[in-house]
């Protein structure tokens, strides 16, 4: 029996975090994600948790480092400029192998940009974002239900791999209201023998990203790299829509993929065989479904709400086998399905 309730994307993310056992949130206000901290400020105290508004995103991420080092499930959320400020701390957490969940509800940039939803932080999210050779596991939900499921899993994944996990959303996902089914509260949190705190019967624990001896640091880099390889092997997530007979394939993630689906329906009604591959984990990127579909595909079209960033990963996946195009609106302008349909038609015509 399903028990669905209507929830806003941002609030659903916050509730899923609580259900996953997150009891500490440190953040700083920024639109369009304020409903996440606001929800947690209201609900975390009810479950014995702590919501703390920091004096900046920088401070917030280092509170997250402290909470994570202390063994707790910790989250922060922000939007593009705030995520930029957090990057040094995220790098420290990757280096210190401190698990946490970071939500980026992207908005238009560069700079202060605009508060409307956009997808211009794909590169930042999928290439590590801060300094040093590291990766985040980055999950990009397209629906409120998926946001719930992925946020819930994100804490387990962070603990499993001892690595920060990012939920990459945008203003549309954060604001939209949809019916969702919430998971059971997670009551069995993993033991963390490496964490700091009371230490009666064990040697001291150090949580640090400092390795002044270069040969030691090289070994750390190798170990992290091997862990990323494990993540690549185990955690690739994607979805597809009408790809079975598709001659043209759209690559799109998050909210943009919803618009892509609408455009595909319209194209199909006109007899154009278009399909969609939707990366859910944008790092690790699902290269395989793209490679598998090359033989039947005339071209790929990366549809993103930016000037084209994921297009690089599509190209890396398929090489020079087929042309890869891009379409998107910028700065927080939401593209209409009709615009994408027009672009598809134009490209189909050229391809003939």
């Amino acid at each position, binding site marked *: 029996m399903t028990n669905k309730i209507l929830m806003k994307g941002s609030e659903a993310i916050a509730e899923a975090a609580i259900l996953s056992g997150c009891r*500490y949130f440190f953040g700083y206000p920024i639109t369009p994600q304020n409903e996440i901290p606001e929800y947690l400020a209201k609900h975390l105290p009810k479950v014995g948790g702590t919501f703390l508004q920091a*004096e900046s995103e920088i401070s917030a991420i280092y509170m997250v480092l402290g*909470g994570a080092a202390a063994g707790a499930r910790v989250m922060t959320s922000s939007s593009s400029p705030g995520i930029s400020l957090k990057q040094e701390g995220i790098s420290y957490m990757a280096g210190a192998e401190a698990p946490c969940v970071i939500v980026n509800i992207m908005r238009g940039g560069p700079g202060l940009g605009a508060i409307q939803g956009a997808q211009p932080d794909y590169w930042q999210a999928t290439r590590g974002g801060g300094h040093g050779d590291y990766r985040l596991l980055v999950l990009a939900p397209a629906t409120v239900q998926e946001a719930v499921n992925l946020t819930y899993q994100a804490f387990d994944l962070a603990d499993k791999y001892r690595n920060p996990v990012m939920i990459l959303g945008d203003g549309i996902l954060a604001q939209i209201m949809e019916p969702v089914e919430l998971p059971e509260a997670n009551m069995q949190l993993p033991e963390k023998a490496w964490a700091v705190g*009371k230490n009666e019967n064990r040697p001291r624990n150090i949580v640090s990203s400092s390795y002044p001896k270069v040969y030691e640091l090289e070994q750390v880099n190798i170990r992290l790299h091997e862990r990323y390889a494990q993540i690549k092997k185990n955690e690739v997530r994607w979805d597809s829509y009408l790809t079975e007979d598709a001659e043209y394939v759209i690559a799109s993630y998050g909210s943009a993929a919803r618009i892509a689906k609408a455009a595909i329906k319209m194209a199909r009604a006109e007899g154009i065989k278009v399909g969609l591959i939707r990366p859910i984990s944008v790092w690790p990127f699902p290269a395989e479904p793209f490679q598998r579909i090359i033989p039947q595909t005339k071209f790929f079209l990366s549809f993103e709400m930016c000037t084209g960033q994921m297009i690089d990963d599509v190209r890396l996946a398929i090489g020079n086998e087929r042309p890869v195009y891009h379409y998107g609106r910028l700065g927080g302008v939401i593209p209409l399905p009709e615009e994408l349909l027009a672009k598809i038609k134009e490209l189909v015509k050229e391809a003939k």
Partner: protein
Amino acid sequence: MNKVSSFPKTLVDVPWHYCPGCTHGIIHRLVAEVIEEMEIASKTVGIASVGCSCFCYDYFNFDVVASAHGRAPATATGVKRVHPDCLVFTYQGDGDLAAIGTAEIIHSAVRGEKISVIFVNNGIYGMTGGQMAPTTLPEMKATTSPYGRNTALTGYPIKMTEMLALQDGCVYAERTKISSVATINKTKKAIRKSFELQMTGKGFSVVEILSTCPTNWGMEPLESIKWMEENLETYYPVGVIKDEKEVK
């Protein structure tokens, strides 16, 4: 005869990287001795900052989290909120606390964060090779103030502990120095008081310790202690700046 003083169990017996005569070592020992005497090593978490003391995680024989430059108070906040029964202290230099980490330290005091701050003020960026710090004295030479600190260009030394003491969340603030057995003992007492206040659930406290950097000051260790007393101390007078009793 009995052994009356020796290497504390709360420190790790490995060679230390500090320069000869650097007072960081004395301050490490004082912190470690207080923790040993209070018998709280098994519930202590130190937060290392970035400066010459950043490798203190190798020397303290209890849990340590290494934070980034200036951010130790934020990391201490995260640890303390998860483990309110633990002793959580930061160990920060003046560049770390009074420049890049100004916001973090002030807001920890503002929140009344129940942490202790060991603030080692040597008026210079030691680790990076002796650049000017916000605490550098007027006319004092540093590698980035080669003609002496020009106050018209760079302003005046910052008095952090006075500023922290102004915040209602701060219950205790004292400035001490490392210059004699008496002042070393006084410093130890101040550290103990700060830790005890924390363990009895009071608020934020800070012990600023006037210290030396013989290497970057270009002096012999003894000479640098004298210089500290004759110069740093005139700008940063030692004494209790705020006492618990004054807290409303």
